[in-house]
C-alpha cells in the first residue's frame, strides 16, 4: 500500500501491546487495536471509538492501519470472484473467493509473481516482483465484503508461500488466533512446491494443513515441469513429511495436475502408490487450465476418472478438484498480474 508509515495490520497482539506501551499508552490499547484490526473492517483510527481521541492522534501520527480496499473485482458465472489489489509500486496481486454451499474459501497470494518457474503456471510467467508482508496477505481477507463468511483459507494464489516463510507464518498465526480472525487451523492450508527447509519449520511450528504440488512421482519428469526438483526432489519432500507426527486432525494433501500423456498413466499410479505409501495423505487431482504458449494439454475426463479410481484402489484417498472461476481466469494456475506490472513499469514505477 502507498504509505511511508509503519503499518499495524500483520502485527500480533503482543506486538500491538508493546508498541502501545512504547507510545506511552495503556497496555490494553494493544487488545483494542487487535480487535479493530482483526475483528472489524474499520479503515481509520478515528473509527476506533473505544480508544481515546488523544491515543488515536498519537497512533495516527506514527502508524498506518495497513488496510486497503481491492482495486477491482471480477465475478464468474459460477459465483467465484477474483479480487485485484494494488499494494503500491507495481505490487499487483490477486485473491480468489470461491463460494461452495456452506463452504467459503479464499485463495490468497503470498508474493507478487513467483520465482519458481513451473512450466504449467501463469503466475510463473510473470517473474518475481516482490514479497508481501503479513499485513498485505491478511488484507486480502480483511478488505473484501465476504470476510465474515469465510470458512477456509488456502495459500494457493500467486507466489510460493515457503519462499516467503516469515510473512506466511506470521499471517497464519494471526488468522488462527482467537484475538485474530479465529479461523480453525484445520481450515487453513498452505501449499508448497516443496522447499524442504521452510517446510520443516512450518511442520514444526504451525498446525495448519499442508498441500504439496506433486505433478509427477518421477524425478526426470518432474524436473522438466518444475525446476525446484533439481534442488528438492519430491522423494525427499515425502521422506521429510514422514518424519513428522502429522496427528489426527492435520491434513497433508498432494496436488496433481493431470497432463495428457505426461503424467496420467498406470505407471504413474503405481509409482505414486509406492511414493506415498507411508504418508497419511489425500490426493487432489486438478484439471489443467491451459495457458498461452504451453506445450502441455490437460488429460481427458475419462482418464482423470480412471486415474482417481486407480489411486483409490491403491488406498490413496483421491478427489478431483472442481474447476472454478475459469471464465475470469481465477482458476488454479491462472492468476497473473503480468500485464499490470508491465504497464506500471512502462510508466516508470519501479518494482517494490
Amino acid at each position, binding site marked *: 500500500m502507498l504509505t511511508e508509515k509503519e503499518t499495524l495490520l500483520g502485527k500480533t497482539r503482543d506486538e500491538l501491546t508493546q508498541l502501545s506501551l512504547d507510545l506511552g499508552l495503556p497496555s490494553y490499547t494493544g487488545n483494542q487495536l487487535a480487535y479493530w484490526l482483526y475483528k472489524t473492517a474499520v479503515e481509520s483510527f478515528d473509527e476506533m471509538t473505544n480508544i481515546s481521541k488523544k491515543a488515536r492522534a498519537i497512533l495516527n501520527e506514527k502508524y498506518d492501519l495497513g488496510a486497503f480496499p481491492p482495486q477491482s473485482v471480477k465475478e464468474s458465472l459460477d459465483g467465484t470472484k477474483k479480487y485485484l489489489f494494488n499494494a503500491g509500486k507495481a505490487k499487483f496481486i490477486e485473491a480468489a473467493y470461491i463460494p461452495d454451499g456452506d463452504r467459503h474459501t479464499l485463495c490468497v497470494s503470498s508474493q507478487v*509473481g513467483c*520465482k*519458481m518457474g513451473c512450466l504449467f503456471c501463469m503466475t510463473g*510467467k510473470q517473474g518475481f516482483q516482490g514479497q508481501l508482508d503479513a499485513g498485505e496477505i491478511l488484507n486480502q481477507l480483511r478488505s473484501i465484503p465476504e470476510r465474515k463468511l469465510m470458512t477456509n483459507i488456502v495459500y494457493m494464489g500467486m507466489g510460493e508461500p515457503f519462499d516467503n516463510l516469515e510473512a506466511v507464518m506470521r499471517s497464519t498465526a494471526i488468522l488462527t488466533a482467537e484475538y485474530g480472525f479465529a479461523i480453525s487451523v484445520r481450515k487453513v492450508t498452505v501449499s508448497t512446491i516443496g522447499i*524442504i527447509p521452510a517446510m520443516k519449520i512450518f511442520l514444526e511450528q504451525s498446525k495448519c494443513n499442508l498441500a504439496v504440488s506433486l505433478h509427477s512421482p518421477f524425478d526426470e519428469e518432474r524436473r*522438466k515441469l518444475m525446476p525446484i526438483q*533439481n*534442488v528438492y526432489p519430491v522423494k525427499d519432500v515425502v521422506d521429510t513429511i514422514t518424519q513428522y507426527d502429522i496427528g489426527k486432525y492435520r491434513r497433508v494433501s498432494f496436488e496433481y495436475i493431470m497432463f495428457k500423456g505426461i503424467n496420467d498413466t498406470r505407471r504413474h499410479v503405481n509409482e505414486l502408490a509406492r511414493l506415498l505409501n507411508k504418508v497419511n495423505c489425500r490426493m487432489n487431482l486438478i484439471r489443467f487450465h491451459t495457458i498461452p504458449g504451453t506445450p502441455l494439454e490437460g488429460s481427458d475426463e475419462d482418464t482423470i476418472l480412471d486415474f482417481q479410481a486407480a489411486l483409490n484402489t491403491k488406498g490413496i484417498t483421491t478427489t478431483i478438484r472442481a474447476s472454478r472461476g475459469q471464465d475470469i481466469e481465477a482458476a488454479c494456475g491462472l492468476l497473473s498480474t503480468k500485464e499490470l506490472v508491465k504497464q506500471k513499469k512502462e510508466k516508470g514505477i519501479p518494482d517494490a
Partner: protein
Amino acid sequence: MKTKLKLTRVKVIRQREIAPSVFVLSFQRPWDFTAGQVIGIGGHENDEARLYSIASGELDDEVDILYNINPDGKLTPWMAQLNTADTLWVSEPFGSFTGSGEPGWWIASGTGIAPFVSMFRTGLYKNKKVIHGGRNLQSFYFHELFENELKDNYIRCCSREQSPEIYNGRITQYLRERSDLPTNEKYYLCGSAEMVVDARDILIEKGIPFDNIVSEIYF
C-alpha cells in the same frame, strides 16, 4: 529454527572481487561433488542457509562460489567482507542440475553462469554452446575460460552496453533471432526466474520439446 541443511565450518582461502559487487569466494574442498550442484551457505551454524551453485571443477582442490551482493540481503554483504582464514558455514553439495558429455546449450544470466563454469572446469565443454547474458560488459564472469576454448560457440548478450564482439541485446532477443536452434539437443537454463521462464517459452515456440529443456532458477 531448525533447517534441513546441516552446516559445517570451513575456512576462507581467498576472496576476489571480479566485477563491481561480484565476488568469487574460495575454500578448501571438504567433500566430493558433481558439477552443477549447489550448497547451502550461512554465517553461523544455525542459520537458515541460502543456496549457491559451486563454480569449481570436480577435481579442483578448492571450492569456488560466485555471488553478487544483494544490498537488501543479510548474507551476501556479510560474505563480501570475509577475509582469508575467516569462517564460513556450508552444507554438503546436493541437486541434480548436472551436466553430461552430450551436445547441448548452456544458457545463463548473471551469476547463473556458475554451474556451467563448474561443468566447464570438469571437462564437459565439448559440443557445448554457451550463451551468457549480462547488463554490462563487466558482467561476463569467467569469459576468458569460455572464449579461449569455445571461440564462436561462446556468445555474450549485453543489454545495456555495446562492444563489437558482443551481441547487443538480451538473451531472449538473441534466441528469438536464431533460426537454427536444433530440436534434438539439450538446453540448460540457469539464472533469474524471468530469464529462465522467457527463454524456455521461446525455445518451446521454436519447436524444442520441453523435455529437452532443463532449468535451474535462483531463488
